[in-house]
């Protein structure tokens, strides 16, 4: 069984926000809505201070809290691990927004563009009226993943079927692939390194892993 997931190597992320921009460009999200963003985190006390970057978006959880609370069944978890939203079913009640512990979801109530009511050419191209007044979030570029089925290409390996954020990452911090495949890059990376997931104590089983250190010699993760 395929289970698509993402790994973010925090040691590599430089906080350039290219993934944020690539997501915005690919998905045409309106102003104020970022399906993906990079948190800029300062820790410690002067003079011992550190700056770290953490890209966040929908975690495509194993047990999505959003799916459980959705009263319309618009939110579904697919067999390949992706959590999707059927915009034609969603009523925009925002219950899923409240249930998501990852601030991944947004609802906009009118069509807005970077320069007011009139879209630029690329915005007009990607504008989808079905996404107004309903819940939206990162889809892991679901259209590309679906394309993999048709073309036989491999998500995470072939750029045509890999999420835009992963393709755009300048430092190679983001890796996407099937964690059920032991030979996939993401599986190897997770095996060779220590990682954590966000808010695991809530039992959602997020599908995004944050790598922070190499694994111990005995590979005991």
């Amino acid at each position, binding site marked *: 069984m395929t289970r698509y997931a993402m790994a973010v190597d925090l040691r590599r992320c430089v906080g350039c926000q290219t993934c944020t921009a690539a997501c915005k460009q690919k998905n045409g999200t309106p102003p104020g809505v970022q399906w993906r963003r990079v948190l800029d*985190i300062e*820790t410690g006390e002067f003079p011992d201070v550190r700056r770290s970057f953490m890209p966040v978006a929908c975690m495509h959880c194993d047990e999505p809290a959003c799916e*459980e609370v959705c009263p319309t069944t618009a939110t579904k978890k697919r067999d390949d691990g992706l959590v999707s939203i059927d915009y034609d079913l969603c*009523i925009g009640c925002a219950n899923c*927004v409240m249930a998501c512990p*990852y601030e991944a979801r947004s609802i906009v109530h009118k069509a807005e563009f970077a320069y007011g009511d009139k879209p630029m050419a690329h915005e007009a191209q990607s504008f989808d009226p079905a996404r107004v007044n309903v819940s939206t979030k990162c889809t892991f570029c679901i259209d590309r993943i679906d394309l993999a089925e048709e073309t036989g290409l491999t998500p995470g390996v072939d750029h045509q079927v890999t999420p835009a954020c992963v393709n755009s990452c300048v430092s190679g911090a983001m890796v996407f692939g099937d964690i059920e495949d032991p030979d996939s890059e993401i599986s190897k990376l997770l095996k060779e390194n220590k990682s954590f997931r966000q*808010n695991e104590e809530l039992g959602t089983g997020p599908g995004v892993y944050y790598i*922070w*250190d190499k694994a111990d010699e005995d590979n005991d993760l």
Partner: protein
Amino acid sequence: MKTMTFNSRISSRVQRNWDWRAAGNFIGGGVGSGLILWSALMSPLGYDSLPMMLIGLALVGTGLFCVWLEIGRPWRALNVFKHFSTSWMSREAWVAPLLFIVGAITWFFEPLLVWPTALLALLFLYSQSRILQADKGIPAWRHPRCAQLVVITGLTEGCGLLLLLLPLVDESQPWSWVVLFVLLGLRLVAWQRYRDGLTQACAPLGSQKCLESIHKKFLLIGHLLPALLLLVALLIPPVAIVAGILATVSGAWMKYILICKAAFNQGFDLQHLPVRGQP
């Protein structure tokens, strides 16, 4: 390389998607279902509970209308019934029409059905409390004691409104004063336990501070003053009406704050700092 583990939540902020309209559903649903329940339970005292039930249903309906105004695609609202298996919002939506149908039959045909109506009202209130508990993204809501507080507040508000309405259809009922007195005590305990629970669970400071900011007023105006007025009512019965108003309005106000102001989301947690100097 030294690594650090710390618990400070990153990017926790108050939710902006549910406003007074969503709060209106929890307020109307709480007051309305509480009123239906108490008016039925205390009807053996000798008054006609049907007008109260009607007012309670109107309040529940008003709350649902508020939330209908809130949703992004109101003309698809019927989709709300589709996920009964896991969604408490869906379950609330299923209970609501049953409540109205049984309530209508009670009004028009069979007054004895006021009892199942009261049971459905209680189910409606319980569903509302579980909607909040299921929202894992808001620590102040998902705490189990929040659901307890919402249920007890709804019951208290409903009883408070009953005290206000009873003189319109009947003489004052001292037993209802006793019930409200007890409920005020329970709500106070639930409120305190809830806030303690949030502290123990390390809920976002924003939530805790927001609730702390209303604590004194809620304690004095929402509990101590109405309790005192209920004692005074033993000598001057009409004062009980003021106690009822205070108990109801303070509960509604607390719920508004809980939904709209104290609902800070989970935020993120950088459990380990990335180790530097590795390829």
